[in-house]
């Protein structure tokens, strides 16, 4: 997860700030103008990195908010006077933010390629609106005759007509925006966004409404882009519809990737690098006649960068922590909670799920008592995973009801069901691999209070910390709290999945083949853990390892071809002739008698 920048990065950034402070003294007015542009672009690109690198939303229309911010200066500035920056700038930010809220409400409904397309579409719509209509000079662009100034009670404090004053203002703005974005990424809200980028489905299944989080991120990024836009307009006092266009968005994406996606300082390097390359390639005296074709060079550099250098400049600063040695197997921790909790009971009536003509779950009725381990077994293709998907809301039932304690949860969304206390793990390990063990549990704990407005660690921090410590102790992962999840052994990763469910406050755990791919020793440990968990939770377990499930389960349910074949105590199930038939065939039955 995003940490404070390393010492090396901090040094480089500080050096850049110092160098920037000196520019007006050593360079001429062109140098100041060039650097001002870099600073403003960096602010724009930081906002885009927040969207792409932190939240995982690849927008190809982000420049539309940049353009809106720029044009708002034109609309606010009187014909022959300077606008008051204290009014104009917040207005630009607000305007861009509101636009982002409206546009985002629609865009954020989509994902992946479609998200790229709808953001592109909106950007182009705004472009053509300003290009073809006469709103603000159309394709010719518009001038801001007098640059804004900062005035308080009629007294001019800063006049942005003066390049140097504006330059230092932009430098300060960049530093504040960077620190602000960094801080935002480290709040509970920001951490959930980073988790959404890695694995949105998992975050939803933990109980978080990912739509509201993504929308808020979109709005904040749009507002900051609007701020960059109004600053940009102040540099030259001239705005054109090109500011809205997809090329502008594309160049911004370029800067993000060149600098390093998701680092938040990468954009600063990217903006600098891109502007420098563009400047060098354009300057005839340095590169000769190639200067006329500088975008060719730029394109080739871009292609080479993607092929050879996918992590961008920031990748150079990455220290590779040596992977922690494969965990010495931890004994299962002590599970005594302060007070015993009652796990949830699950009741299912006539549950059916059909896919067209294929009935995957066929009229299943079942009652699972709390604080027990319930096993679900059956031959492959029997509908077990579909059954789980319906219980957890990943699929809607075609018919039937599901009750958690007394609450009817049929047909609810996955995150609403998770918030009722039902947590699930997956057949293929579904954790946040780049995050540490503790961070994984932290995301799960955040899901207990999933308002997107959690911008401060605030009042829930202590409670969450307690839950995390408890969850790690229960699953025996306390010693590995700071190891990256991708460095854990497979068994430890499965334990982490369970720890996350505990941290999220789930009272009924549904585990889909938690023992898959484990050796004998790990199996024994996890089986013991599951039995220990049933003291305070209800555990539902799908498994194929018969020895394990017989050791762990209090009841067994057998599903065959979507139907409930048998339900009862393990010893009874073992002796049931219909069950034997389902597994071993007629011959097998004889041999085992």
């Amino acid at each position, binding site marked *: 997860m995003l940490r404070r920048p390393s010492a090396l990065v901090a040094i480089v950034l500080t050096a850049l700030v110092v160098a920037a402070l000196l520019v007006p003294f050593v360079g001429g007015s062109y140098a100041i103008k060039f650097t001002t542009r870099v600073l403003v672009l960096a602010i724009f690109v930081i906002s885009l990195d927040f969207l792409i690198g932190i939240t995982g939303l*690849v927008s190809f229309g982000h420049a539309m908010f940049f353009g809106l911010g720029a044009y708002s200066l034109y609309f606010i500035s009187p014909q022959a006077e300077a606008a008051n920056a204290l009014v104009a700038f917040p207005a630009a930010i607000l305007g861009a933010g509101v636009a982002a809220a409206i546009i985002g409400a629609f865009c954020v409904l*989509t994902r992946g390629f479609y998200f790229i397309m709808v953001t592109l579409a909106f950007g182009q*719509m705004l472009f*053509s609106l300003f290009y073809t209509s006469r709103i603000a000079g159309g394709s010719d662009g518009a001038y801001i005759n007098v640059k804004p100034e900062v005035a308080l009670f009629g007294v001019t404090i800063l006049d942005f007509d003066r390049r140097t004053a504006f330059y230092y203002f932009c430098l300060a703005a960049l530093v504040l925006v960077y620190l602000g974005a960094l801080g935002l990424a480290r709040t509970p809200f920001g951490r959930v966004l980073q988790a959404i980028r890695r694995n949105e489905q998992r975050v939803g299944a933990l109980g978080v409404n990912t739509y509201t989080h993504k929308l808020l991120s979109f709005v904040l990024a749009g507002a900051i882009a609007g701020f960059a836009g109004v600053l940009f307009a102040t540099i030259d006092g001239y705005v054109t519809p090109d500011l809205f266009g997809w090329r502008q968005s594309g160049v911004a994406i370029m800067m993000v990737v060149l600098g390093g996606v998701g680092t938040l300082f990468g954009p600063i390097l990217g903006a600098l690098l891109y502007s420098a390359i563009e400047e060098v390639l354009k300057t005839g005296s340095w590169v000769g006649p190639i200067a006329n074709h500088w975008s060719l060079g730029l*394109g080739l550099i*871009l292609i080479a960068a993607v092929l050879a250098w996918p992590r961008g400049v920031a990748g150079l600063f990455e220290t590779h922590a040596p992977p922690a040695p494969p965990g010495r197997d931890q004994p299962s921790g002590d599970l005594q909670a302060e007070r015993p909790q009652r796990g949830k009971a699950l009741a299912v009536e006539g549950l059916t799920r059909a896919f067209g003509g294929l009935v995957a779950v066929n009229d299943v009725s079942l009652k699972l008592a709390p604080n027990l381990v319930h096993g679900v077994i059956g031959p492959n293709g029997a509908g077990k995973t579909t059954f789980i998907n319906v219980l957890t809301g990943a699929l809607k039932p075609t018919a039937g009801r599901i009750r958690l304690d007394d609450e009817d949860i049929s047909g609810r969304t996955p995150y609403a069901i998770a918030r009722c206390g039902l947590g699930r793990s997956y057949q293929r390990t579904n954790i946040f691999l780049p995050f540490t063990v503790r961070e994984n549990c932290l995301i799960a704990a955040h899901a207990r209070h999933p308002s997107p407005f959690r911008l401060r660690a605030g009042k829930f921090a202590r409670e969450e910390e307690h839950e995390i410590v408890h969850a790690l102790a229960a699953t025996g992962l306390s010693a590995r709290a700071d190891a990256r999840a991708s460095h854990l052994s497979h068994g430890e990763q499965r334990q982490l999945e369970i720890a996350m469910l505990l941290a999220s406050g789930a009272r009924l755990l549904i585990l889909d083949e938690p023992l898959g791919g484990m050796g004998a020793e790990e199996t024994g440990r996890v089986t013991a853990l599951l039995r220990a968990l049933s003291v305070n939770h209800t555990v539902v377990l799908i498994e194929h390892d018969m020895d394990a499930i017989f050791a762990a389960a209090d009841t067994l349910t057998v599903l065959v071809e979507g139907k409930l074949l048998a339900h009862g105590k393990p010893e009874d199930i073992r002796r049931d002739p219909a069950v034997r038939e389902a597994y071993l065939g007629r011959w097998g039955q004889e041999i085992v008698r």
Partner: protein
Amino acid sequence: MDLVLTQIFNGLQYGLLLFLAASGLTLILGIMGVINLSHGSFYMLGAYLSLTLTSLTGDIFLSLALGIPIAFAFGAAIEWLFIRHLYERDHLQQVLLTFGLILVFNEVQRILWGTFPHSVPIPSYLSGSVKLFGLMSYPNYRIAVAGLCVALALAMMFVIQRTKIGRMIRAGESNREMVEVLGIDTRLLFRFVFAAGVTLAAAGGIIAAPIESVYPGIGESVLITSLVVVVIGGIGSVRGAFVGALLIGLADAFGKVFLPEFATGLVYALMAAVLVARPGGLFGRA
């Protein structure tokens, strides 16, 4: 009335040309999973190629005949050099690399042909117009272009439905892994599909050249509109690209007649409407 009819016909003809570009884009995205932003550049390069070839051969259709193998070879080369590295990469990197290709192609075009608009002559045997329905005159060449596009569309349908390579393409869309397991080297299949997509786009550019002047920006508008067609029609569906392109063509025509300032906006509104009603596109694999 005359004007409206002409606009409708223009819209349909524009839609048919758009189909050529969009069909390649949808196949590449559907089968190979690659977002290729430089697709519009192939249309643009086709138009400029038409300029050169027609000045050499004197006839647009000869240019087309020559241009097709050139475009195919070029497409295969681009796939081998750049595109094949993108199959395992995420959308962001695909967008970025193909954006870089746009810059390169644009500059190559500038170097070879300059920035002034050019025109390509309509062949003399197709100049003039014909009276349609006794109501209006419509240029012969435009009718020929529309006819050619329809012919190409039918040829594509034939190839996809009736030939071995078409089966591989259809199969690759639903189960890439199985195609490989059955003994077909999907690397070569992908190279062929990409080259074919490039050729279709370039062919569109070649025959469109005499209709509108050839200028540097045509690639970009074709790209964006093609992307919209792909979204409307459904990723991977050639039939969807056909229907989507015609819808866009008509929407564009109506926009120009009734709402000239919002013509482009209308196209995007259409896309938004389709996404709301059918998130996978009209013919997409939902």
